[in-house]
Structures are given as structure tokens and as C-alpha cells.
């Protein structure tokens, strides 16, 4: 801004108007500057308020990319050019104009600083886990490690010598009971250890207190009390160590990581040009879609080249042929398989409630029941055996005493378990049911076993019988023999026969070679049993009916990604559910697979931490018979100084952490950096309190939220934002100068002018008289003169 109207500098003389002059004149026009400012306003508004524009299929830009696209840079450059030209040509550098000069200079500095800042910006994030457990044992050279997160499992040695280790739990607030440190709290890791022989035990490790490592025997308490020594097995040495993080992943990037199966290090292949917001699929066959969501077919074919140093897939051609923004893997059935696999789809209609649809697969133990076990699907190989399906859905104990011709079917309701002895009428025996265990998984048996434990009193003896639903498993337990699994369980007293029929579903669908058979055992006994057909509606009770939607005898499961409709996508999911289809061509043909996006690439599945992080590598066969695995993730950068987490603390408001973030005042990670092979002293990093080390800044950004039920669990990792910040000081200086300039232009300049006018008036007063004042100060109409 300046005195453009009054000053003759910008006004070209006739005959001097060259092309350069014309351009300079154009750029020193205030209107031209305003024009660019208006364009800037529009550009910013579109980028920010209407994200659909920058997300268009041919742009596919993040906010950051939109505001660093060349048109934006051109806009800002033209605006700045205008600013520079106008300032130099039209605003004389005088004290009164100092403000304008400062504002304009500040803005230019800010623009240049920002250009440098964003041009060199690297920004990303990394999780840092708290610790790992080192396992040292005789017969093992060196130490093995496992990540200290609950549920993590490791087996050492093989076969009969196998040791099983599992992280049972972690506790952030374990109170130390021993003398000098009594009352202090430490982070505890409990490792359950199952040695090849002997009792399993739990070894407790405390961060910072290796001297308090001790074993706990299940049911017996601390080893020091039970055995007189702290450790059950002194040879086995477990200790805690840092779990260093050496990389961080760069935001808004894509990369493929490749290694040979069995290797530990990944090789990175950057993926450039992959879309971000829109799906790219070349064929409908590849995906499942929502019937209401149209899918536009658009294929891509993006080569992903190996780095110069090569990797496990160097010899193959690797291409991305599809991209999905938000998809989940789904299984659907189609008929026509070679193997028998009965699958039934049905809908349940109940008056006044929405229709429920179910899918039942007879051979899939996880999917052969529905409605809390009230509907059951099974396969009966011989049609004749259909008659033997249960006729009562209640649990039953069938008692037969052949010598007295007694046959009893006793329903087992919860209230008559554990009751008093009942005599079996017409015999000298009596019994009572002590307990019932349904659906036990026994080693070596495919089908689950259900058992009723009965106490039987005969004139000779009292014993317990484990009555199984499979007669060959029924055992009698005499005194002194308590374990039913051992071979030397007593012989069965043949005088009393018992079979146990566990509670069965009231609705049973039995697939058989001739079709589909349906049984309904209502409260009053068997109501329906007959063959049924697809499309048939079966009224179970008045107001409730079941419709058979489809029945496939030899169903084949198709597993494909399902494109989640936009309305059902989690808003902040970003690219977490993205997938690509990878085509790997080797000399022996082409393999294509869908690969899920993983936020981070981890060395192995331990780091998935029970599903908190995605870890889903896909494998491809290589011509030499070996396999390569790939992970689809983001580019990563090696940290100059690996980081380890010393501790993580929550600073809470009154009443402590309740599960709601409003009770948290701050999150504090204490980190160590590896510098020249040595760990530094711990540095606290909290929200609003980052730290700089080795050229990168570290910010607190994520945490491992404990489950609501147990606030002392969780906090096994911390999430850090990591980035550089070159050029912030230029930006800041530019801003400060411009602020000072504004204050000068608005508030100091008028004072200067007023002073000058007063001086002028004093002078002219003395010389001419008051009537000349107006003219002398005439320039100063406002700040813009």
C-alpha cells in the first residue's frame, strides 16, 4: 500500500513504454495485487471448505498437497512479485512509510521462509514400545527376546523340550512390597512360563528393579513362601530391556516393503502416483460392493520398482493393479464346489422386530449356530439317521438299568444340578447330578465333548461317573483317581447305563445327501420334522417364522474385499483400511493378491499387540521355491538416534483417570536416545512440550489407552510425532516485522504526521498566518496519504 496516486514515479512518460515497463506497471498496480489476493482467497476456500475438489479423481490431493501444488505456488509468487515491485517503485523509503515497508518485507520473508520450511519438511510418526523380555537359558546360545505386551507368546526349543512363554499381563502401578523400596510403584511384566516338565509358573519382572524378580506359583502364591526360594528355576534368566525404535513413517506417503520369508529386515520400495481417495478397480470380479453404491471401473497399472540395491523380488515384476480407499475382507458363498460343504442362509421374522439374517455352515464350528445357539446346522451323512436327531432341546440324562428293566430320561435344568440324591425307582441305586460341562475341547478329538458329572450310590460303593455324550468317553472315578484323562480310570459299572444328551438347539437344520431336513423341538416336544426347500417359510410359533433364503450343498467361499459405502466409513479412518492389489510376475507366471495397508511395518506379528496395530504381510512364491513377503505401508526414515521408552505417565485431574480423556491433564513419555552406542538420560516429552534431538523434533501424539476395566493395564507403548523444522525462524522474523509494521503504519505514522503538521503550522504561523495551514497539511488525509 502506498502513495501510489500522488507519486509520479509510476507514471510512464510518452515514448518510454516498453514491454518491460508495461509489465512493471502492471505489477505495481494495487488492483493487480488485490486481484491476486482475491484469487488466493478463492483458492484457500476451495481447498479447505470443499475437500471434494482437491479429492477429485484426477487430483487426489491431501490438504497439504493442495496447498503445495504449483498453481498455489504460482499464485503466491505473483502476489509477492506484485508486493515487491509496488513497494520498490511506488513507496519511497521514508520514515513515514516505514510501516508499509516493514509489513511488505515481513510478508516476503514469511513467504520465502515458508517455501524453505515446507520444501524441506519431513514429518511422520512412530510407536515406541516400552520394553522387551530377554530370555536366557542353558542350552541356548545368546538371548532370545519377546516384546512385552500382553498376550505375546513364544516357544523356545522344540518337541518334548519346548518351553512356552507368554506375557500374561503388564501393570503400570505395581506396588513394591520389599523393604527399602516399599510403597514405590513400578511397571511390572508377568511372564507365564511353562517348562517341558514340572509345574508352570509366573515370573514377575519389574522395570528398574531386577533384584525383585520373583516367581509365583498358580494357586500357591509366591515361590519364596511356597518353595523357600525366589525362583523356581534359577537357570532360566528373564530380564527386561529397552525396545528401541529405529524408524519413523512419513505421513501421506505409500511404500511397499519386501523381504524373504525368514529374514528380519525389510527393504523399502516407494510407491509414487498411487491414488488416495478414490477406488481404482479394473474388474467387478475382484471385489464385493454394496448394491446401492455404483462402482466405476477404472484400472491402474503402477510399476513398483526395486531399489538399486535389490530385494527379494528383484527378479520379478511388481505392479499395483487396483486400489481401494476403505475396504474390508468379506467371505461370501457360491455353489458348485467339488467338496461337500452345506451352507444355509435364512431370515428370521418376528413380529415387531427387524428381520435378522443368518448364514450357517455345517462344517465350520464358528458358524454353525445362530441366535445364541437356538438355531443349529449340522450334517448327517446317512439319511436314515435323521430320525436319531434329538427330540428334546433340553439337556437330558438317560438312565438305563437293564437288569431291572428301568429306563429314565431326566431333564437337567440348572436347579436340579447339585441337589440331593435321587433313588432310581425299582433298583437299589440312587444318583445325583453334581455338575455339567458342555462343549469341552479335548485334545485329540475333533468334536467337542459334553459331560455330566453324576454321583452314583450302589449298595457296594459310592463313586462319580463322568457321563459323556459320546458313550466311549464315559468313565467312573473311584476314590484316589481324580483325573478322567488318565488311562487308568476305573472300569464302568455296567449295571447302570447312563448317557448324557447336552442341551440342543430347538431349531435344527440337518443337511443330508438327499437335501435339507428341519427339526423343531418346542417347549412341548417335537413339533416339526421334515424335509424343507429353499424359499419355504416355516412358522415356528405364532408370529415368528423362519425363511430359507438359500441352501448350497457344495458351497465355495469367496473371499474378496468389500468396498465399504462412504456413509459407513469411520470419519477419521483416513487410509487405515486401504488395500492394493499387487501383481507379482515371475518366470513361472503371475500371482495377484490383495494387500492391506499397515500403518507401520513391524519386524513380526508380535508388534500387532493383539490387533491394536495392523500387521498383515502377504506372501508370494518365488521360482526357486522360497517365498517373499510384502507389507503395504508408508515410506520410512531411519532415525539418526534410535529411541527407547523409559516410562509413560498420565498426569490426571482430581479423582484419577476414569476412562474419559477429560480426566487427563497431560501425557508424559520419558524417552532415551541412543547416541554413540550409549543411551542418554531420559528426556520427558509431553503434550505442548516437545524435544529436539539430532535434528528431529519429537512430539507426544498417541498413547496406549488402558481398557476401561483395568486402568493399570495398557500404556505399553507411546506414539510420537517426529519432524524437522527448518526455516521457522525466518517465518517468525517475517511475522514479527510485519506486526511491528502494522502498528507503525496505523498508529505511529499519524503521530509523525501530526507532529510534522504542527511544526509546519508553527513555521507558517510565524511566516504567513493561519489561513495557509490547510494547504500545508493537505496531504495528510488519514494514514494513507
Amino acid at each position, binding site marked *: 500500500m502506498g502513495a501510489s496516486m500522488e507519486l509520479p514515479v509510476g507514471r510512464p512518460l510518452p515514448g518510454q513504454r516498453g514491454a518491460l515497463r508495461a509489465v512493471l506497471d502492471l505489477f505495481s498496480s494495487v488492483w493487480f495485487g488485490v486481484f491476486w489476493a482475491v484469487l488466493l482467497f478463492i483458492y484457500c*476456500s476451495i481447498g479447505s471448505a470443499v475437500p471434494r475438489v482437491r479429492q477429485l479423481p484426477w487430483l487426489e490431493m491431501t490438504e497439504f498437497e493442495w496447498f503445495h501444488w504449483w498453481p498455489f505456488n504460482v499464485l503466491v509468487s505473483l502476489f509477492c512479485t506484485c508486493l515487491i515491485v509496488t513497494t520498490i517503485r511506488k513507496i519511497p523509503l521514508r520514515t513515514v512509510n516505514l510501516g508499509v515497508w516493514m509489513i511488505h518485507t515481513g510478508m516476503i520473508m514469511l513467504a520465502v521462509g515458508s517455501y524453505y520450511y515446507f520444501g524441506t519438511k519431513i*514429518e511422520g510418526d512412530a510407536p515406541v514400545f516400552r520394553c522387551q523380555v530377554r530370555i536366557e537359558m542353558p542350552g541356548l546360545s545368546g538371548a532370545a527376546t519377546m516384546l512385552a505386551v500382553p498376550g505375546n507368546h513364544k516357544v523356545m526349543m522344540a518337541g518334548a523340550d519346548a518351553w512356552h512363554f507368554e506375557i500374561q499381563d503388564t501393570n503400570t502401578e505395581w506396588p513394591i512390597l520389599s523393604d527399602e523400596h516399599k510403597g514405590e510403584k513400578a511397571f511390572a511384566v508377568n511372564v507365564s512360563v511353562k517348562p517341558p516338565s514340572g509345574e508352570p509358573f509366573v515370573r514377575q519382572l519389574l522395570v528398574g528393579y531386577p533384584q525383585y524378580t520373583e516367581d509365583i506359583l498358580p494357586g500357591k502364591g509366591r515361590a519364596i513362601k511356597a518353595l523357600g526360594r525366589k525362583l523356581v528355576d534359577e537357570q532360566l534368566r528373564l530380564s527386561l530391556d529397552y525396545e528401541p525404535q529405529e524408524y519413523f513413517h512419513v505421513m501421506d506417503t505409500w511404500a511397499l516393503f519386501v523381504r524373504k520369508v525368514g529374514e528380519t529386515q525389510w527393504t523399502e520400495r516407494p510407491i509414487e502416483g498411487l491414488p488416495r481417495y478414490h477406488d481404482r478397480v479394473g474388474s467387478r470380479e475382484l471385489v464385493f460392493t454394496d448394491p446401492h453404491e455404483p462402482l466405476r471401473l477404472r484400472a491402474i497399472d503402477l510399476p513398483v520398482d526395486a531399489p538399486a540395491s535389490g530385494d527379494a523380488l528383484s527378479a520379478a515384476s511388481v505392479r499395483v493393479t487396483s486400489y481401494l480407499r476403505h475396504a474390508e475382507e468379506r467371505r461370501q458363498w457360491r455353489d458348485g464346489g467339488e467338496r461337500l460343504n452345506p451352507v444355509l442362509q435364512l431370515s428370521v421374522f418376528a413380529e*415387531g422386530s427387524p428381520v435378522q439374517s443368518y448364514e450357517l455352515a455345517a462344517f465350520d464350528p464358528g458358524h454353525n449356530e445362530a441366535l445364541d445357539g437356538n438355531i443349529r446346522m449340522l450334517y448327517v451323512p446317512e439319511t436314515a439317521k435323521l430320525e436319531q436327531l434329538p427330540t428334546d432341546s433340553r439337556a437330558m440324562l438317560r438312565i438305563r438299568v437293564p437288569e431291572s428293566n428301568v429306563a429314565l430320561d431326566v431333564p437337567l435344568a440348572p436347579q436340579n444340578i447339585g441337589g440331593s440324591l435321587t433313588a432310581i425307582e425299582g433298583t437299589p441305586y440312587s444318583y445325583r447330578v453334581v455338575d455339567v460341562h458342555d462343549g469341552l475341547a479335548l485334545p485329540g478329538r475333533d468334536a467337542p465333548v459334553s459331560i455330566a458329572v453324576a454321583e452314583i450310590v450302589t449298595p457296594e460303593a459310592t463313586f462319580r461317573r463322568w457321563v459323556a455324550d459320546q458313550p466311549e468317553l464315559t468313565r467312573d472315578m473311584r476314590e484316589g483317581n481324580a483325573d478322567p484323562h488318565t488311562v487308568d480310570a476305573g472300569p464302568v459299572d455296567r449295571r447302570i447305563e447312563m448317557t448324557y444328551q447336552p442341551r440342543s438347539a430347538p431349531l435344527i437344520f440337518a443337511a443330508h445327501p438327499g437335501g435339507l431336513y428341519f427339526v423343531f423341538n418346542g417347549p412341548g416336544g417335537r413339533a416339526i420334522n421334515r424335509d424343507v426347500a429353499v424359499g419355504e417359510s416355516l412358522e415356528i410359533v405364532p408370529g415368528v417364522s423362519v425363511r430359507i433364503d438359500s441352501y448350497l450343498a457344495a458351497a465355495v467361499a469367496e473371499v474378496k474385499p468389500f468396498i465399504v459405502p462412504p*456413509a459407513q466409513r469411520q*470419519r477419521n479412518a483416513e487410509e487405515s483400511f486401504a488395500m492394493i492389489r499387487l501383481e507379482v510376475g515371475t518366470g513361472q507366471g503371475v500371482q495377484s493378491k490383495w494387500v492391506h495397508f499397515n500403518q507401520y511395518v513391524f519386524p513380526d506379528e508380535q508388534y500387532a499387540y493383539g490387533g491394536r496395530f495392523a500387521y498383515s504381510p502377504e506372501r508370494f512364491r518365488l521360482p526357486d521355491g522360497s517365498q517373499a513377503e510384502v507389507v503395504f505401508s508408508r515410506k520410512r526414515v531411519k532415525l539418526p538416534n534410535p529411541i527407547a521408552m523409559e516410562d509413560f505417565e498420565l498426569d490426571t485431574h482430581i479423582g484419577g483417570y476414569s476412562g474419559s480423556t477429560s480426566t487427563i491433564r497431560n501425557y508424559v513419555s520419558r524417552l532415551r536416545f541412543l547416541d554413540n552406542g550409549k543411551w542418554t538420560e531420559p528426556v520427558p516429552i509431553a503434550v505442548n512440550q516437545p524435544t529436539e534431538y539430532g535434528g528431529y523434533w519429537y512430539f507426544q501424539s498417541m498413547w496406549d489407552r488402558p481398557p476401561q476395566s483395568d486402568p493399570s493395564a495398557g500404556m505399553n507403548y507411546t506414539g510420537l510425532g517426529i519432524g524437522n523444522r527448518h526455516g521457522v525462524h525466518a*517465518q517468525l522474523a517475517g*511475522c514479527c516485522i510485519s506486526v511491528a509494521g502494522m502498528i507503525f503504519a496505523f498508529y505511529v505514522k499519524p503521530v509523525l504526521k501530526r507532529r510534522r503538521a504542527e511544526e509546519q503550522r508553527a513555521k507558517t504561523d510565524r511566516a504567513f498566518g493561519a489561513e495557509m495551514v490547510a494547504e500545508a497539511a493537505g496531504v495528510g488525509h488519514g494514514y*494513507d496519504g
Partner: protein
Amino acid sequence: MVVAAIVGYAGYRGMNRAPRTDEGATAFATQVRLEPLYQTAVQADGRLRSFESHAKTYMGMVSGSRSVRGQSNGFTYLDLMFRPEEYADTDLIYVKNKEVRKQLLDALKGHPELTTQRYDVILVSGLMARKFVQYPPVAGLLQKLGQDLIRTSKVVDAIQSAMTVSDPRFLAENLRLIPPPSGDVSTPWFPMSNLVGAKMAPQDSAHAGMTMPAAGVPGLSSELSKSVADAWTGLQRAWKTQDAAAVNERVAVLANLLPTVAPSLYPSTGRLAMESWYFRYKSITWVWLFYLAAVAPLLMSVIYKWDRARTVGMVLFVLAFLAQSAAVGIRWYISGRWPNSNMFEAMTTSAWFGGVMALILERVARRTPFRNLFALGSAVVSMAALMAAYFLPAQLDSAINNKMAALNDVWLYIHTNMIIWSYAVIGLACVPALLLLRHRWCQSWDSGAVPRLRLFILPIALALLNYTGYVLLMHAIEPAAYSLTRGAFVGISGAFTGSLMIVMLEAMNARARRLSGAGFERGAAGGAAALILGGSGSPSFLRQERPTATQVFDGATMVLVELAFIMLWTGLVMGAIWADHSWGRPWGWDPKEVFALNTFIIFLILIHVRLKVRDKAFWTAVLAVVGFEVMMFNWIVVNFVISGLHSYA
């Protein structure tokens, strides 16, 4: 006299809102005196709040700002907890979204108890009985609506949480009245069920009548433990038998006993009483009435230069400002932090900042024709802000919560306050700008330079332009949530284009007729420079005997625009400094940031356009209004629709 009338009216309204005088409450409800509990602390969400404030928060989650049966929140809380069976048929659960409300009512049509009358009541009040929400077709519909994450899932989440909160077990478990006797700050307080075995709710058939054993309160003397437990069981019994006298007695006993459990932890009764009082009186947002009272005489003084109106207006304005200062101060005192970390606080505190700025400027410009314009601007802005808070409690939730960890920084105070202050000043600047535009319009009307019909249409076209522009913009931003039918889209686009053409045509005509040029005076000087130079011997219009209205309005607009320009820019820079050390980048192109920058760009354009155009006053006023609109867009649309990183304020 006017003051007395307003105070009287506000007091009357306040009394009306007080719990016991409403119709619909039972005799028991009117006889129960819960005042002692208003000074009793409850620990929840990391805060110690008074029981009344606690009840307001939880009942607000259940019924929105609606009162259930005309009872106080505290009474409803206890009644729901002690006698849940009485509420089986009461419309309780608030369904905020009208569209969802209609859909739920449609699903409810098969329910035998839904009469036409009840249907209408629910449709208007938005409150539904728990059993209606649990009615299978409604539950099924809610499940379906919950899957639409763009349009309806938030409403469904709110209904589900209302169902959770209105469960008596939840209410009992979260009424943490007993401080830890150890005095430890990070130990959660204990609910009464730790002392008194809680009976399972009767609706749960499997556990009906089972009594959970009391876990006890570690460190609490058995004597105190017994007396608290006795008082509580007594209260429970008396409540069930509707014995108001016994209830009042136990309440008083409890209120005396509880602070003695851990005196070091217990907040002062004064603070708790203040918090209860503050929320019972609608967070003192009715001060908008005071501002309303000030606006009328201030307008008269500005337009008619009437001295008596001037005095009355200023006195009323100062009184309103003092009342609002008290509201801000009370909130500061009871929350223990400066109120600027949620939407309600940002809005009301910003308005208060506007008042501060107006008072400063009124002082500086007390001998100039600008006087009263700043006060008028502030009165209008504060009135609008407080009215929004008063009439839209569901959108602007006044509950006091801890601020997010990310906000715990000294820069919160520096950056946020600077920004909201600049927003207030932008609002202030809009008032004289609008007055100027109205003045222009009146001059044209009087002079007859433009056919009157066209002049009459102009403001209508402008209003239509704004409204249709807004609708189209929302549709562009989020087509799914702001869907338009084909017909509506065509209609709105047509209205938009039509009104845009009228406005453009008028602008061109005005240019041709030199209406905005030579025909009318040109306000050239303005802003601080006018004030500063006005003091000197220079011929500023401020020295003139009778400056024109255009000069005065334009000058005042510029004073405010300059301030807003500097403050907004400084606020942005401060935000960048904070973001640099909080998020790791000074600028993240977050929508909130971008639109603050956009507002700044508008003012930047304003200042440069002012250099070049002949009719400075007119274009300054137009751009000041545009700047205000962009600012409001940032505050409302960006916050509620395009929420980004700044979603908390």
C-alpha cells in the same frame, strides 16, 4: 426505572426457571428442599462440581435442556435413581434431530400407547420414554441410523448415551459423593454403594432383588461410615415413601457429614453454592436482555444525537457489561481457569472482550463524534452472542469441563484470547459498517435517484443472496448431510443467480449514476489516523462543526478494522508459534486456520481497495461486512461442519 424493569423481568424469568414453582411438579417435589446438596461436591470427569451442576450435566445428557416434569435437575436425578419405576412412562430421552425424531415416531406407530396427542407432544418436545426407545422397531431403526456415520450416527450415539445415563445403576455409580479419607488427589471418590449395598435394578430379572455387598471406603472410620450410610439409607427410604420432611432432614445431615470425610480435599462451600447458583440461573446468559435495553437508547443517541439517550444508553451498557463481567468472573472462579476452552466460553468471552474494547475506545474517543458507536457495536455483538447461548443451549453447551490436554499451555491464553478478541472487534466493526450502508440506502430513498421499487428490492435480494449462497455452500461442502432434491436445487440456484444479478445490476447502475461517487459525500479519512490527526490543527473532519454521518460511521469502522487487522494477524502468528511446538508444524492448512487467514485476506483487500476507490466509505463498509461473514463462517460452519484440529473451540 428502565433498569429496574429489566432487572425485575430478568428476576421474574429467573424465578420461573427455579425448580419449585413450575407446574407439573408433585407435592413431594415442591416440598423437598435440596439446597444443602447444592453445596455438596461430586467428583466426575476429573472435576469436583456441585451436585446441582453434576445433575445438570447428566440430566442434560438425558433430556437436553428440557426439564422433566418441571422438576429441577437435582430432583430428577435423585428421583430417577430412587424410583426408576415411576419414570417408565415418562418422556425422558431427548432426540435432538427433528428428522430422526420423525423417523422414530413413524417406527413407533405400532406401539399401543402412542396416541395422536402423545405423538404431537413427542414431536414438539423431542422427549421420548425409555420404553419407546427400546420398542423393537425403534431399536432396529436406531441400529440402522447408527450405521450412517455422515448423517445420523451422532444423534443415535446421543440417544444411546441418554439411555445409559438414565439407568439408575449408572446414576448411582457416578454419584461419587464420598471423598477418599486419605486425602489423595488421584484416588477416585466413592459412590454411596461403597457404603450401602446396592440393590440391583428390578428390571433385570436374573438379578432381581440381589444385593451387591458394599465394598466399603478404605480409611473411613466405622463411626463416620455408619452415620453416612444411615443418612443415605434413610434418605432412600424417605424418598420412596415420599416423606418430604424426612428427606429434608437426611439431606441436611449428609451435606454436613460429607465434607468431614476429607476436609483437605473438599472444595469450599462458597464455590459449590456459586456453581449451583450459576447453572440454576442459565449461566447468566440472560444478560442479553440488559444489552437489548442498552441498544435502543444507544441507537437513538447515534442517529438522533439525543443527549439524554446518550447518558441512559451508556449507563445501561456499562451495567450490562458489569453483569457480563460478573458472569465471566464467576465462571472463571468456579472452573478454576479462564473461560476460553469450549464453544460456549469462546462465544461469551469473545463478546466480553468486545465490551472491553468498546469501553477503551469510548474512553479514547469520548470527545469525538465516534462516541457511543463502539458501545452500540459491542451491545449488539454481546446481545447476539448471549442470545445464541441463551436460546441454543444444545448447540452451545455451557457445562464446565476440563480442557483437553492439548490445550494445557500458556499459548492457549495468548493465542485464543487474541483471536477471539479480534473476532469480537470484527463484529464491532460490522455495526457501524451496516449503519453506513443503511444510511446510504436511506439517502438514495430520500433523493429518489433510484426508482423506489428497485431500492426496496435491493435488501431483499441481498438477504436472499446470503441465504441461498449459504445453502448452496453447505450443499457443496457436505452433499450427503445437506442434500437437496433436484427441484430444490434448481430453485435455490435460480434464486441465488437472480438475486446476484439484481445486486450486480444495482452496483453497475450506481456506478453509472455516480451514485456512490460524486452524488454522495466521500468519507476519506478514518481510523486511528483520524483520531490522532483530529487532535492536531489539521483539517480532519473530526474538527468540523458537524461531520456527516458517512464520515462518522466510516471513521469508526476503520478504527475497528485497523484493530481487527492487527489483532487477527498477531493472533494467527501466535497460533503458529503454539502449533509449532504443540503439533510440530506452525501451519497445517487446517480449515479453521485457513479461514482465519481468509478473514485476514478480506481485511487486507479492504485496506488496499480503500486506497484506490473513490467511494472509500461504501466499499470499506461492504468489505467489513464480508469480513464479518467470513469470520462467522469460520466460527460456525467450520466448527460444526468442517471440524478439523480445532474442533474443541
